[in-house]
């Protein structure tokens, strides 16, 4: 389990290491390295998802390790409460950023092994603390530079820890 501590409460995450081994190992490594400590949730869209894991306050982007393979063809669906890896338009381009689905986002699921259909790899789910995620969703957002949907007041992962 991974615990993300925020000022709005904790989010306890259960990894699906059997279904998404590379994504889970990658996420766990970032946690163990303290990479996520002090990063913000920088894209918050009600009815869709909360994204974080790549920016520090002030929207300064952190350098990451190498990109990982997209394991979205593992059968896991982007349902409310699941975590998936964010990426660029290139399917195998996820690094540190992840998002929590706050709705069933079927359009993010894997449908075909091509750039349009690869989808977004679900690798974990929220075991406890969905109320914290919903509290983040309730924050006011605005634009910051060319980024939209950025919380007006920073919401940080104060500490990410591996438990159990």
């Amino acid at each position, binding site marked *: 389990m991974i615990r993300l501590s925020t000022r709005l409460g904790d989010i306890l995450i259960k990894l699906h290491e059997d279904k998404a081994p590379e994504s889970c190992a990658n996420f766990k490594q970032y946690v163990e390295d303290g990479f996520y400590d002090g990063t913000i949730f920088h894209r918050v869209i009600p*009815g869709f998802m909360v994204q974080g894991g790549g920016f520090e306050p002030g929207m300064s982007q952190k350098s990451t390790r190498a990109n990982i393979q997209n394991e979205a063809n593992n059968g896991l669906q982007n349902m409310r409460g699941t975590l998936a890896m*964010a*990426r*660029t338009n290139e399917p195998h381009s*996820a690094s540190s950023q992840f998002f929590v689905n706050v709705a069933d986002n079927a359009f*993010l699921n894997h449908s075909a092994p091509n750039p349009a259909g690869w989808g977004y790899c679900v690798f974990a789910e929220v075991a406890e603390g969905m109320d914290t995620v919903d509290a983040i969703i309730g924050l006011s957002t605005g634009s910051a530079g060319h980024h939209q*949907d950025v919380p007006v007041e920073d919401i940080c992962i104060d500490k990410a820890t591996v438990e159990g």
Partner: protein
Amino acid sequence: MFDALIADLHLEAGAPEELAQAIDFLAWAKGRCKRLYILGDLFEYWLGDDSPLPGLALFEQALRELSTAGCSVCIMHGNRDFLLGEAFCHSVGATLIREDAVTITLGQRRALLLHGDTLCSDDSDYQQARNILRSPGWQQQFLSLTPPERRLQAQALRQQSKDNSRQKSEQIMDVNATTVDAAAEQYDVDLIIHGHTHRPCWHKEGNRDRVVVGDWHKNGAEVALYHNQTLVLQHWPFKPPLN
């Protein structure tokens, strides 16, 4: 729960991708939206409730399911579907807004909702035609025709409108600033939400916000969503999480 405001879907059987996007949107809205305002031009054209467009049963079903699930669906006329009537709205559980403009409350703010064509007052030819087409006399005469006759007449009107539009400047077909000011003053609002121009944008006009929602295309549309004291103009479907 959300309030959603959309416009200019221009649905017809000949545009299946737009139709699919709209149905997906309604499925998303179900259980999430407490109010949905459709600010005109839901349909590409409408020849009367006794002559519904073919091929839209799935969309109508989705709308019915949304209203049955407890969402209040309100439909305003646009310049293409101004003959939409109570019978259609009743069949999908929606309320027809007969007025050209209405105000609603979004949190602490009052918002003026309108299709947007009445704000385009520089287009005098259009406004003149609009006055005729919205008159009870013209509508009574039109609806007394058989559906095939109506179709022919509507095709001629649409062709004429298309030909006219081609000759008009972009500016003429956008809103007139003085008319927008007058509407804001008349309704005493500092927030206006409309469609029609197909130029989705959040305009800051002094202390006033004018939010123009977008027309629907195969990749979706810019829609206005209100949630928890915050109004946003957001692309539907939501853009995937990018690094």
